[in-house]
């Protein structure tokens, strides 16, 4: 019954989505607001319907209704409640439904805003949102239906169907397969939703961009309207990526947080264009430049989002992440090709009209530096894309199967990241229109000197690697420049008589976007510091230890104490070692690296013992052990300096985005006043 309810919600939402597309188009063609309003209503309705579907599936998952094939494939009796609920996105069908639910949520949210000023955009935004939704729902309904159930015929064969076939009885397996052990972790609750939130929310700026292209508007209205959407979408995507890294670090037992896996890169690429887009739109708002760039970047972001979703499901690439290959691959491919071709054709048609006749007067002006920013991000994107495509090209064109590993990505992008760090420290000090080397130099020299001092101190402290020194110098420089910006701004306010704290507060409150952005930059620097720490200074070692023996790396040592084997409540065979951690001979704490063996899926998992401080992480893995006696065991030990700063950076992202995106009622009222006055219209009461 529940499954029927869920399917009903799906089907109706799909039909509504198709209807909404048609109604929006018809409404535009006939210039009929009523039809557009009908399309809007259809969009709004998809959300409760899909919520019904999603809730039906979640209920079935928690209830362990094994007759439903999806439930049997991703849950099992031994799974705790929270994992059963999150199994919604543990398999192909459920995750597509989840994606669709998010899409309907955002489309509905966008419909709830005040459209009075943007009537001409409305039909196109509805069309783009509903077309995307319809596509995903079609995938779910016709290829990966989560509500198909298991039936058994008289002869004993089992097959799947939505409704009871003639002569067949419900088939209910005794137990489900259970979720892939890799996914059974609290990180599972939050990483996929966050990532999907980021992906799906980028559809909205794209929808508005298409609306602007189709309606022939060359102003920045579409950007201003979606400004907060973009910011929040960016935050979700960033957090999704960071959470994925954290989860890999905690659970996969690789000693690292990012493997340059093709699917990781597939999620990373829209982040690159999204970040470039976030910055580039500021230039269009302030000076009307980069119109082509912004449209191109948002189109790329949208298609990279769909491409990323496609890569994991099509069987084109194999990866830790990849869902099993299915028939939806070619359809995704078709969808991407069509949307890309249409978007680019629209852009191409309006190319000349979007040319700005404003000029860039100085190579060091903020506009020029932002152009450099765009270029750097797009270069990194191209390098990543090349790395993903190359094995494909090699296999097809030469028949040779090759792997493009981390060494390619790291060495090719390192100089570009360094350049971006440098930009973060120069662009805030540059002026609009005109900056000469002298004016910029005057602003730069103090933070530059400070950062060189910091670098010198580090050199004296024994850091010798040029790459690390360069990176840390750049980080120090950016922190100093950003602090300097805060200090300078607060100082200027202080001159008017406010005390420093109040000045700082008011400064940030009056310029939320700018200073929120600076806070985010500081977050980026923290992440950079963490990455530099682990990439340049990680130490690892492996060794076989008898009980009481020690393994040494850097100034840490681990001592093998004991090993125990037991069955856990949820069907795992656990082999858990106890090790003592010493630093310079002083006991720090105990760690419990272990190996879990999931009986039902016959899969082993290596869970590290982790000791985290701001300075270093000590990461211990149990590799193997002597069976039965456990008299000796092999451990692998990593000492990862500064890694915790990466996670801290993520928190700073949240703070910075909150500051930047926080609605400013005061400013909105002021802006409205100014615009009304400019038009000679009376003030409208809100």
């Amino acid at each position: 019954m529940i499954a029927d309810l869920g399917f009903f919600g799906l089907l109706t939402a799909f039909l509504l989505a198709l209807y909404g597309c048609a109604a929006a188009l018809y409404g535009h063609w006939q210039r009929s607001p009523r039809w557009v309003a009908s399309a809007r209503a259809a969009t709004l309705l998809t959300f409760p319907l899909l919520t019904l579907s999603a809730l039906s599936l979640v209920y079935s998952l928690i209830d362990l209704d094994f007759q439903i094939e999806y439930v049997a494939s991703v849950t099992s009796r031994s799974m705790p409640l929270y994992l059963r609920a999150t199994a919604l996105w543990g398999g192909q069908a459920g995750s597509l439904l989840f994606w669709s639910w998010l899409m309907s949520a955002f489309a509905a949210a966008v419909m709830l805003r005040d459209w009075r000023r943007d009537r001409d955009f409305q039909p196109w935004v509805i069309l783009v949102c509903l077309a995307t939704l319809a596509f995903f729902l079609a995938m779910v309904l016709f290829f990966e239906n989560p509500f198909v159930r298991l039936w058994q015929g008289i002869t004993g064969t089992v097959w799947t169907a939505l409704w009871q076939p003639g002569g067949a009885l419900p088939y209910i397996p005794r137990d489900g397969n259970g979720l892939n052990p890799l996914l059974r972790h609290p990180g599972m609750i939050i990483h996929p939703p966050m990532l999907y939130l980021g992906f799906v929310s980028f559809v909205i700026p794209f929808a508005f961009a298409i609306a602007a292209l189709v309606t022939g508007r060359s102003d920045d209205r579409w950007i201003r309207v979606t400004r907060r959407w973009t910011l929040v979408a960016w935050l979700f995507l960033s957090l999704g990526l960071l959470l994925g890294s954290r989860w890999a670090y905690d659970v996969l037992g690789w000693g690292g947080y990012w493997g340059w896996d093709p699917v990781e890169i597939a999620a990373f690429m829209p982040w690159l264009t999204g970040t470039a887009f976030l910055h580039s739109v500021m230039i269009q708002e302030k000076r009307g430049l980069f119109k082509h760039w912004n449209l191109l970047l948002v189109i790329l972001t949208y298609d990279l989002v769909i491409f990323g979703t496609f890569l994991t499901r099509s069987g084109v690439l194999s990866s830790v992440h990849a869902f099993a290959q299915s028939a939806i691959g070619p359809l995704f491919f078709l969808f991407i090709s069509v949307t890309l071709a249409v978007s680019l054709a629209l852009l191409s048609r309006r190319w000349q009209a979007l040319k700005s006749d404003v000029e860039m007067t100085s190579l060091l002006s903020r506009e020029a530096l932002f152009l450099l920013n765009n270029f750097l991000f797009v270069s990194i994107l191209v390098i990543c894309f090349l790395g993903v495509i190359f094995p494909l090209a090699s296999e097809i064109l030469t028949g040779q199967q090759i792997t493009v590993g981390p060494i390619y990505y790291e060495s090719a992008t390192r100089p570009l990241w360094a350049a971006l760090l440098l930009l973060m420290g120069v662009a805030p000090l540059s002026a609009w229109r005109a900056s000469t080397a002298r004016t910029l130099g005057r602003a730069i020299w103090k933070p530059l000197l400070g950062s060189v001092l910091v670098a010198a101190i580090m050199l004296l402290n024994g850091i010798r690697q040029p790459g690390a020194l360069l990176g840390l110098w750049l980080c120090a420089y950016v922190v100093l420049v950003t602090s300097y910006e805060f200090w300078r701004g607060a100082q200027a306010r202080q001159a008017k008589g406010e005390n420093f704290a109040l000045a700082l507060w008011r400064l940030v409150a009056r310029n939320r976007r700018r200073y929120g952005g600076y806070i985010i930059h500081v977050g980026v620097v923290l992440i950079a510091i963490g990455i530099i720490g682990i990439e340049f200074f990680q130490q690892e070692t492996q060794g076989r230890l008898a009980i009481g023996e020690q393994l040494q790396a850097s100034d840490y040592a681990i001592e093998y104490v004991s090993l125990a084997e037991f069955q856990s409540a949820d069907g795992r065979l656990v082999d858990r070692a106890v090790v003592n951690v010493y630093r310079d001979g002083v006991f720090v704490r105990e760690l419990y690296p272990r190996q879990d063996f999931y009986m039902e899926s016959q899969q082993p998992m290596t869970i590290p013992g982790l000791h985290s401080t701001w300075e270093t992480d000590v990461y211990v893995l149990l590799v193997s052990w002597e069976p039965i006696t456990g008299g000796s065991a092999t451990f692998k030990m990593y000492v990862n300096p500064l890694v915790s700063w990466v996670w801290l950076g993520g928190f700073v992202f949240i703070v910075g985005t909150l500051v930047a995106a926080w609605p400013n009622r005061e400013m909105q009222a002021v802006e409205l006043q100014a615009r009304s006055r400019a038009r000679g219209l009376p003030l409208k009461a809100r």
Partner: protein
Amino acid sequence: MNKPKEEQTSILGRVLAWIFLLAVLALVAVQLDRSQRGVLTRGEAAPDFTLTTFDGQVFGSSEIEGKVVLVNIWASWCKPCEQEAEALQAAWLQYEGRGDVLFLGVDYVDTEKEALAYLDRWDISYPNGPDLGTQIYTAFRARGVPETFIINKMGEVAYVKIGPFQGIDEITSVIDRLLEP
């Protein structure tokens, strides 16, 4: 003011961009098509391959021509492979004497030490060799282990078995049928 040169480069740029885009899409399309194709099926011509056994014997197109050949792709780390090891060896003993049946074991991505230990453990006497560079596995478009391909005397794939054989009868029924004149 649009200088002709500017417009030329703009058009050139756009043409290049479209070409690049189409090239990428074409690549992905081809790969997609390939991955959808699936494993080698009945009726298709068996690919040419050369297998050098652990003993140093070489089996190429000339050695397998005109014979019924059973190509079994396995690995020592593959648990399901063990299920069929006994059946395969027993079947081989039945056909060994005849000159027109050949069993070839293709060891996929394995270490020699472990492979030889596996063969020893199951007393396997038919020729076995490593699949160097995974060439045979790729040629047969295999997707996992164990997979078995039985090739008839005309060099066509007559039977494909994904997963382990359930018993010796499964093997002998197919080969007997192929041996009929």
